[in-house]
């Protein structure tokens, strides 16, 4: 117990081994990771590096059918998440705990219900409908949806991709979480919309002091948003550093190759010095 910044969420020697067609796949193989209060932490890696599995393990959202081994410890404010009863876990998700946002917003919304009904589900702790309505509007406005009243009356298919993702972020904010885990939150979105969602996340991080764990393959997003970065490759963390150190002086070859790819894609010659 040190004096400064106790980690909000911390993983120690987390292993998730999956059984795939009779073989054991070490998707996550001994990972240590810390998220401090108010900090924005990124996990980067290619598909198959185990970053999503790690995110799901840390939020107890792994499908447990195919798991061969799940070990190590994940602590949220000192409580062991992996050992928690499901009631305690549910309480953690519902009240000032951790929330999640995923890649494809459409598949996390019920196509047959208006946004209003779906938001109300995450606001069941409020006393009456009027309070739910007011809070829904407030949350939608917080994520940058100005005409919140109109959005509440719509069905998911009537929203654009960026609006859907922001609705999901608003729902994730409903229990007033201390940490938001976001798995590729902008991959399905257009460039301009992606930028808005990133700015929304950044604003929430600053204004509400909301800690974040961002899982992504996009180093541009990491550069834009994160304070601390973990680079994952083959189920292991190959490098962990603050964002400036990582981009300026990567230690691991794999990090350097990811950076080279990102620079190849993020250089804009025509812009010269501007970008």
């Amino acid at each position: 117990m040190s004096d400064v910044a106790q980690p909000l969420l911390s993983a120690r020697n987390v292993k998730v081994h999956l059984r795939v067609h009779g073989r054991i796949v070490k998707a996550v193989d001994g990972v240590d990771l810390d998220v401090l209060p108010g900090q924005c932490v990124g996990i980067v890696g290619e598909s198959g590096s185990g970053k999503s599995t790690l995110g799901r393990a840390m939020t107890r959202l792994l499908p447990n059918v195919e798991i061969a081994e799940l070990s190590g410890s994940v602590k949220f404010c000192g409580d062991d998440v992996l050992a928690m009863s499901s009631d305690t876990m549910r309480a953690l998700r519902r009240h000032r705990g951790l929330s999640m946002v995923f890649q494809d917003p459409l598949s996390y919304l019920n196509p047959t219900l208006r946004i209003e009904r779906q938001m109300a589900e995450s606001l069941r702790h409020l006393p009456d409908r009027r309070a739910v309505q007011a809070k829904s509007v407030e949350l939608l406005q917080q994520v940058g949806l100005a005409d919140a009243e109109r959005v509440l009356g719509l069905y998911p298919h009537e929203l654009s991709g960026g609006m859907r993702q922001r609705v999901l972020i608003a729902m994730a904010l409903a229990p007033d979480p201390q940490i938001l885990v976001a798995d590729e939150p902008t991959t399905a979105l257009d460039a301009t919309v992606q930028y808005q969602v990133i700015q929304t996340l950044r604003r929430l991080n600053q204004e509400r002091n909301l800690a974040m764990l961002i899982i992504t393959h996009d180093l541009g997003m990491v550069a834009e948003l994160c304070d601390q970065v973990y680079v994952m490759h083959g189920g292991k963390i190959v490098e962990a550093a603050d964002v400036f150190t990582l981009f300026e002086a990567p230690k691991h070859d794999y990090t350097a190759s990811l950076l080279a790819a990102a620079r190849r894609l993020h250089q804009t010659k025509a812009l010269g010095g501007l970008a």
Partner: protein
Amino acid sequence: MSVPIITGRAIVKSFGGRSWFGGADTSKRAVDTIDLDVNEGETLAIVGESGSGKSTLARMLLGLVKPTSGEIAYYGQAMSGFSAPDWAKFRKSVQPIFQDPASSLNPRMRVDTTLANVLRRHKLATAATMDSAIGELLASVGLDATQFHDRYPHQLSGGQQQRIAIARAMAVRPKLIIADEPLSSLDMSVQAQILDLLVSLKTSRNLGLVLISHDLNVVDAIADRVIVMYLGKVVEAGPTRQVLGNPASDYTRSLLAAKLVADPRLARERRLAMEAAMGKHPQSTIQGASP
């Protein structure tokens, strides 16, 4: 250089319209009166957000969708008047690459069968030369034939699948490839590889390329000319350097503002500059934001 492969004049595609029983005309113009030329050996990028009509335009250039009005011509010959042999010739020189390679490859067909079908259809290889032709094709997209020829699509990674889709398009030695978001379903490191592959094919084969994208970084890396679309109309067109370096339309500027940079210091500086310029909420000034 400046021989146009495809020319489009006043192309319009509208969807919807009057119902059988009359009533108000509710048609929407997905593509609204567009002129364009695609020249030999040139890369033309079509940029725009979802719903701007860029994919519809690509489908018309491929002859998969007929324009509602206007004319698209292939080497001066109108596509509306194509006979079956004309189509066969067209298909042999204009090929597509799509966004999601997993769904554009037949899941029940091995890699070599997929490629052999194209080669056989266009009489580009005989039974005797088939294996070596497939080997060459796979090598041209950076895959080792001995290792990959008998794989099924699900046994390949996304990047490998996209390489196969490119090999299939290149099999007919086309003059023009129309690629609809060829990188956006791929991982960043794989995107860079596929981008390099497209650049090398473009230069080594004098290949014309129409690249549909909303990623300005990709456009900048490969395109000679850019067309920017917004709500079905061309809002800006010109050489890449001019359009990206000195954008004339608000929409292009907002796209540039939304571009991510892989440098944390630059990203923070840029954000501060933007916040200073626009007040507290930079995102509110970006078009296409609110519905």
